[in-house]
Structure formats: structure tokens, C-alpha cells
């Protein structure tokens, strides 16, 4: 297990390096021109242009820029924005706190919804709940995040406003008396709707995956044996079936965590949240390369980390994979 972990860790580092290099190539070599961003339509005297180039190190050849970039990165310096000279570290901190909150609640809601819907529809197979679950999970796959985001805004913002139903309005704080004044409702209420929008997309897919994986496991002989031994249904479901059904689900959950960034960009745009997603989108549009690259590194590292955890958790869930890994490596 130890050598396997080390090997996978090194692989992840390699992947991060390659991905960051690719991003560097995409955003730095081709465009990335701070001069036109600063001057706009005006023509500046050549001395000033030279100064700007020197300031961002753009007068050096690309490979020097590349090594400098890594050198600064190891010192924890992500550089400065071309547009407003703000430090990328500051921009990152601002965006990260919003995005982290959004994605944490999103991922948590996602897991809860997926487990609840998946387990219920597998246990009560063919029931009304199961069929509703299937319709819901197929239906949600056809709805892009920005459409469901706008729909949520309409249903829980515009409509309650027009009808005067303040209790349904997610864009106004609920009265303090609801929580007896213990929890301030205005600080977290604005996050519920975006987090649910983030959660619902892949929750449906994971739930379906869990359902079919559970149904397949249930046909196995050891489940029949477990029931025959007289174990309670609850014990068989949770200890025998769920654990074996989880392997494909973990893969899907991992992929969906990596893809969650694309979801976050759209959600942050729709709900006008000042997170990393909307910052990257705006910076990419204005070709502010240092900001895009600095924020992308975090997203890439997060993706590689999730991949690593997914791979290592296989070994925890299914001991057979650990043995295989030993035999191969």
C-alpha cells in the first residue's frame, strides 16, 4: 500500500506539472499582452512600452519566463494582474473563500441527495418514489446549470416577489424569529440556492449509478447467503450491499468533483457571486494571463488531488484492488 501511495502521488505531481505547463503554453505564448490591456486604443511612446514589457518580464525569451514562473510559484508568488496590478495572491484569496463555501455545501448536498435517492429507489424498486426518482434523474441531465440557475432565480426570487410570498423568497433574509434568533439567517441563506443548483446536476447521475450498482450487487450469491443466515435487512443493505456497490459510485463522485469547477463558473455567473469561477472567466475574456494561470493552478491541483484520493479510496473500499496493485508494481 505504501509504495502504491507513493507511486500514485508522484504520478499526480507529474500530471499537475504537465497540466500547468499546458496552461502556460495556452495563455502565455500566444496572447497575454499587457500593453494593449493597459493602453487600449491609445498609442504609447516606445520607452513606456519597453518599461511595461520589462516590468512583467516579457522582454525575456519564453523559456526564461517559464522558469521564472516556476521559481516564483515555489516562493508562493503568483505574480500580478495585467489589468489592475493587483497581486494574484490577493485575487485568489478573495475568490477562494466564496467558491470554497459554494463548493463545500454543493458537494455535501450532492452526496446527501445522491445517497438518499439512490438507496430509496434501489430498496423500493418499482415504487412510485423509484419512478419519480428515475424521471427526476433523467430529466436533470438535460438541463444545463445556467438554465437551472436562472429557473431557480425565477421560482424562488421573481415569483415569490410578485406574489408577495416572502417566506419563499431566497433572496431576502428570513425573519429572525424562525430560528429564535440563534442563527443569523442572512449570512447563509444566499448560499442555499446556488449550492443546491451545484448539487442537483450530478446528484441525479450519481443516484442512478448507485441504484443500478446496488441492483447488480443484490443479485450476487453472498447477498442471498447473508439473508439466508438470518441477518437483518438493514445489516445486509448497509454492510454487504452498499460497500460493494460503492466502487463505481466513488469513481463517478470523483469525476463530478473535478467537473464541479465548470458548474461553479456558471453558477457564480448566474448568481453574481464573486468566486474563482467568475474571476477566471472574466480574466480569460480580457486575456489577463497571470490571473487565469494563478487561479487555474489551484483548480488543477484540486482536480489531481481528488483523482488521487479516489484511487486510494478504491483500495480502502475494496481490499482486492490493494493486492492487485502490489502484484503489478
Amino acid at each position, binding site marked *: 500500500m505504501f509504495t502504491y501511495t507513493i507511486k500514485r502521488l508522484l*504520478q499526480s505531481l*507529474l*500530471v*499537475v506539472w*504537465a*497540466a500547468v505547463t*499546458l*496552461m502556460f503554453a*495556452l*495563455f502565455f505564448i*500566444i*496572447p497575454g499582452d499587457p500593453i494593449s490591456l493597459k493602453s487600449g486604443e491609445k498609442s504609447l511612446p516606445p520607452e513606456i512600452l519597453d518599461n511595461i514589457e520589462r516590468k512583467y518580464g516579457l522582454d525575456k525569451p519564453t523559456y526564461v519566463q517559464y522558469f521564472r514562473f516556476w521559481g516564483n510559484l515555489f516562493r508562493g508568488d503568483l505574480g500580478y494582474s495585467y489589468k489592475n496590478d493587483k497581486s494574484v495572491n490577493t485575487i485568489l484569496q478573495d475568490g477562494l473563500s466564496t467558491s470554497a463555501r459554494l463548493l463545500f455545501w454543493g458537494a455535501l448536498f450532492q452526496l446527501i441527495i445522491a445517497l438518499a435517492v439512490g438507496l430509496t429507489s434501489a430498496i423500493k424498486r418499482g415504487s412510485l418514489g423509484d419512478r419519480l426518482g428515475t424521471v427526476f434523474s*433523467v*430529466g436533470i*441531465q*438535460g*438541463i*444545463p*446549470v*445556467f*438554465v437551472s440557475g*436562472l*429557473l431557480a*432565480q*425565477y421560482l424562488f426570487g*421573481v415569483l415569490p*416577489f*410578485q406574489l408577495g410570498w416572502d417566506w419563499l423568497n431566497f433572496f431576502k433574509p428570513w425573519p429572525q424569529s424562525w430560528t429564535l434568533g440563534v442563527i443569523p439567517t442572512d449570512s447563509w441563506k444566499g448560499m442555499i440556492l446556488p449550492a443546491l443548483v451545484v448539487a442537483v446536476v450530478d446528484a441525479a447521475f450519481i443516484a442512478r449509478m448507485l441504484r443500478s450498482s446496488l441492483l447488480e450487487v443484490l443479485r450476487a450469491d453472498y447477498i442471498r447467503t447473508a439473508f439466508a443466515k438470518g441477518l437483518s435487512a438493514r445489516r445486509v443493505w448497509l454492510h454487504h450491499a452498499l460497500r460493494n456497490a460503492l466502487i463505481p459510485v466513488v469513481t463517478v463522485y470523483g469525476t463530478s468533483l*473535478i*467537473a464541479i*469547477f*465548470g458548474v461553479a*463558473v*456558471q453558477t457564480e*455567473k*448566474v448568481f453574481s457571486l464573486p468566486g474563482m469561477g467568475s474571476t*477566471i*472567466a472574466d480574466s*480569460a*475574456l480580457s*486575456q489577463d494571463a497571470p490571473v*487565469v494561470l494563478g487561479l*487555474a493552478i489551484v*483548480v*488543477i491541483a484540486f*482536480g*489531481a488531488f481528488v*483523482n488521487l484520493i479516489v484511487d486510494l479510496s478504491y483500495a480502502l473500499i475494496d481490499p482486492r484492488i490493494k493486492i492487485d496493485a502490489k502484484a503489478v508494481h
Partner: protein
Amino acid sequence: MSMEEQIPVSLSYWQDVRKRFFGNKISIVGLVILVALILAGIIGPFISGWKYDELGSDILVSPGVNGHWFGTDDLGRDVFTRVTFGIRLSLTVAIVVTTISVLVGVTLGGIAGYFGGWVDTLISRFIDTWQVIPFVLIGFAIITVFGSSFWVIVAALVFTGWYSTTRLFRASVMQVKSLEYIEAARATGATTKRIILRHIGPNAIPPIIVVLAFSVAGAILSESVYAFLGVGFREPTPSLGVMISSSRNYLTDKPFVFFIPGSVLVLLTLSIVLIGDGLRDALDPKLRGTK
């Protein structure tokens, strides 16, 4: 499965697939919606009486007023014409993107899956790398550099979609490769080319058909996401994403400018997903003879 439900001997695999696909109510619903939308996309722009970029003095009128069946947008353009044109655009882009992605996926995935070894390692590690980069960023980079013409958007979408088809096809080939009848074919002295074309190919086709359906739906979604974020097609091109993006300001007063393109986009992707789901069940040989 009980003894009474045994497979009728007379049905071939594809006959059985057809029977099961058309016996599935949900996939029929998907098929009907898709055909209706395709027809609307083909004839809609001709019969509406407006051009998609024709500005008018009727601004944000409700559906049905002054012969605008779906109303008009903030520039007085006919929403029906723009939506039907949008269906045409979405489907064209998605079909072109899927064709290229599947060709890339079949070639790279086939090579990686069949030969294994260092070729497989190289391709797989490249996919790993590509996978951790969020697809929006790749699209942003390509589109901001090369502009937002039709072929650049197609290229950006292929770049974001190629690896999932490659990975799926690689897994599919590897699975088929290790089966006994391939070993038997090799033992009888069949050449590599013959094994790939005659033995592995036909058995790997059913998963590809399913992937095709889902990647068409995926390409439609990605195209609309790019358009919504401002890096895909731009005004006045009537992409559904562009229409939804510009409808945001009117959500309170004129929600129909959001709901019409929004529901068309949802119906379009949903119908394809439903067909894909039906195909997956129908093509699964393990479910043969069942309903």
C-alpha cells in the same frame, strides 16, 4: 428470468435491439420530441416570415402579438425564427463535433487499448493531464486566441470532448480483447488486422452508438455554456445559449424570453438523453429477450 421468457430463436441481435428500443415508451417520447424539434429547425425559419437578425419596432412583445408566435426579444427580433435557427445551429455543431470526437476516440482509444504497453501509458497519462484542466478553460484559451467562428468553436468543443470518447473506447477494446474468442482467433493464426476489424470492431460498436448519443447531448450543452459565458457564438448569431444569456435582464418582466429558448434547449438535450438511455438498454446483450 424464468423459463417462459426464453429468447425466441428467430430474432437476430439487431432485430431484437430494434424490437426492444421501440417497445420502450420513454425512448419513443424522446424520439418524437427530437423529430418535432428537427422539423421545426428545418422549416421554422422559412415559414415564420422574419429573418433571425431582422430588427423590428415591436420590442419585447408577448407571444402571439403582431404575428410573432413566440414574441420578440429586446431588439425586436422574432423569437420563433431565432429559436428554430438555434435548434439548427446546435444540432449542426453537435453532430460535427461528435463525429470528429468519435473518430479521434476510436483511433487513439483503439491503439491504446489494443497495443497496451508504453503507447497505452503515454495516451492514458495525456488523458489524465487533460482531464484535470477544467473544460471551460481550454475553450476560453482557444476561443479568445482564434476568435469565435464556427470552426474554432467546433475545435474547442472537440478539445474538450475527445478524451472521454477515447477513454471509453480504450476500456471497451481492453475488455473485448481479453475475452476467450479473441484468444481463440489468435491461436488459430488470425492476423492483427483481421482481429481488430472482424472480431474486436463489431463487438465494440454497441458502446460507441450509446456514446454517440450522449456526446451529441454533451456537445449541445457545452456549446450553450460557452455562448452563455460569452466565449462561444456571439450576437447576432441565434445560438440558444446567446438568447438565454441576453434574456437574464428581463427575467422579472418578460420571463418568456428566457423560458422559450430555455425550454427548447432542455427539450433538445433531454430528448437525446432519453434516446441514448433507450439505446443503452436495447443494445445490452445481457438484457436480450427481456422487455
